[in-house]
């Protein structure tokens, strides 16, 4: 375990704490907190919220629910679409002092190809994360639920870019390790997990969320994340970005201990925009080497 500089599928990071996709909007945060967000950016890489080929408004409200030690969201990937993102957001994100990872999702290999090519063409982008919880429009199978579909998608995308491709795995399968192995076989450079667990909060006899169902995240899923990261680490040799309920340095260390190379902080940032900074400091405290060498850096 190291809390110091880390290399993640070829990207050099100052430390192993990044953000989870969809849980930190650096542009909006700058509206709320000003330039401090750029000056004191708590993550060693910035992962964008997932973008899709066309703009999406997202799901109808309510989109949030609170569970014991957890939350459920059904945001529905609102985004400006690839063009809007690349023309408006990406230039603004280039101000950040860290490498940019762009998360993308599409509903067919063709659409995915277009996205990967467009995003990959931009120098500001260090790597691309593929959010594959989408149905294959031909087979009808959910790509990220099937090792073979995931492998086939990666085989189609791999030749299109020299940039690292990170596959974001869904936790809602019997064997995430098999899907990860499919991703590796298809040429992925890394995998990231876990995404949220499918959940359906009820209120007064009806589903609460506008979309009916959503995804569970936060401390409640932490032990599930450790299981899945551990299983995936045993099955692949590409690096892993581990996440799920990380709230402290020791939680981050646990994920590194089961085989993650970097750790992403998601829900914890909602409670405190600087949660990741605290988590890194705590992680350094647990790592004697980093603790001694890094005192002046932060």
């Amino acid at each position, binding site marked *: 375990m190291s809390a110091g500089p880390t290399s993640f599928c070829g990207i050099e990071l100052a430390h192993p704490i990044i953000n989870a996709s*969809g*849980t*930190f*909007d650096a*542009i*909006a*945060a700058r*509206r*709320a*907190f*000003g330039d*401090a*967000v750029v000056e*004191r950016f708590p993550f060693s890489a910035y992962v964008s*919220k997932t973008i899709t080929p066309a703009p999406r*408004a*997202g*799901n*109808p*409200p*309510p*989109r*949030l*629910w*609170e*569970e*014991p*030690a*957890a*939350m459920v*969201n059904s*945001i529905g990937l*609102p985004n400006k679409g690839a063009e809007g993102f690349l023309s408006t957001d990406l230039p603004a994100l280039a101000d950040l002092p860290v490498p940019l990872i762009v998360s993308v999702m599409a509903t067919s290999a063709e659409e995915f190809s277009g996205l990967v090519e467009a995003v990959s063409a931009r120098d500001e982008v260090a790597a691309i994360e593929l959010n594959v919880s989408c149905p294959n429009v031909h087979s009808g199978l959910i790509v990220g639920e099937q090792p073979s579909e995931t492998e086939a998608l990666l085989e189609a995308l791999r030749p299109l870019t020299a940039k690292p491709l990170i596959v974001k795995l869904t936790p809602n399968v019997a064997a995430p390790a098999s899907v990860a192995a499919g991703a590796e076989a298809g040429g992925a450079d890394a995998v990231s997990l876990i995404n949220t667990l499918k959940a359906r909060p009820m209120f007064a006899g009806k589903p*609460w969320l*506008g979309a009916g169902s959503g995804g569970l995240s*936060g*401390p*409640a899923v932490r032990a599930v994340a450790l299981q899945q990261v551990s299983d995936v680490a045993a099955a692949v040799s590409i690096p892993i970005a581990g996440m799920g309920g990380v709230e402290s340095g020791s939680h981050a260390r646990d994920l590194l201990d089961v085989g993650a190379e970097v750790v992403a902080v998601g*829900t914890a*940032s*909602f*409670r*405190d*925009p*600087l949660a990741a*900074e605290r988590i890194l400091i705590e992680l350094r405290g647990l790592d004697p080497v980093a603790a001694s060498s890094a005192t002046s850096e932060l």
Partner: protein
Amino acid sequence: MAASAQGETGADGRVLAPLGRRRSAVVANSPSGGYTLLTALDPDGPLPKAGQFYMLAAEHGWGGGGGRPFLPRAFSVADATAGETGVRLTFVLEDVGPGTHELAGLAEGDGLLLTGPLGRPFSPPRDVNPGAAGAILVGGGIGLAPLALLRRDLAARGFPERSLLGFRDEAHSGGLELFRCSELRLASEDGHAGHRGYVTDLLAVMLEGDDAAATAVVYACGPPAMLEAVRALCEECGVAAELALESPMACGYGACFGCAMPLRGGGYMRLCVDGPVVDAGAIETALVEGAGHR
């Protein structure tokens, strides 16, 4: 890193928040009618603007017996004064669930974790209506909170203002001490105070004059049904209005996209960064599933 009490301001006049969550200490917490007035001393924060809000959590015990509250909760700032030792922030809250219950139980000296001020504040009256000659503040229930600070600001700037506050019943009322020097009219559904009926009845009377559209500006906050009545009334009378809306929020600073508010003409805004104060014309209805208390 502490921001000065003046505070940096962003594009739409909002005061920027210091980055990160910080600790403030409760200096007073007392019932006011059916509500609770919670005052904390924020040593490092700036002076907020009326209409802005803070994400609050108790330093200890957040998590409760059942694991909730887990997320922080949003509260409009109802009063704020800068002093030598920091900014005194007052919130008005109604104990309706696990989060407000924990906050209502805090004692002097207890830690209150806060992020803020957040969101878009109320606009100056002449930005809303260039001919504005007087502001009408319309509050429903706990919605009086942001109007209290707005009223104080308008009064301090010598801008004519009148406040109309409505309550369901005596158990669901309080916080009137924050309106002490205001021209104030009350309505209550049970008739325990002022006009028996809705606060929008009072507003309707007030907007009857011919020049309302040219000279009035309405600022409103309250439950969705009341805000919708205000919105419809102002639209009908052609009166400019700003509404302070609510929505479930996880982060308060644009990170989660959870606080979606439907826009007139389609799509959503994020209420925490594009609101909570919105131009009444920006929305088609204030009645949104999950918005507001009850």
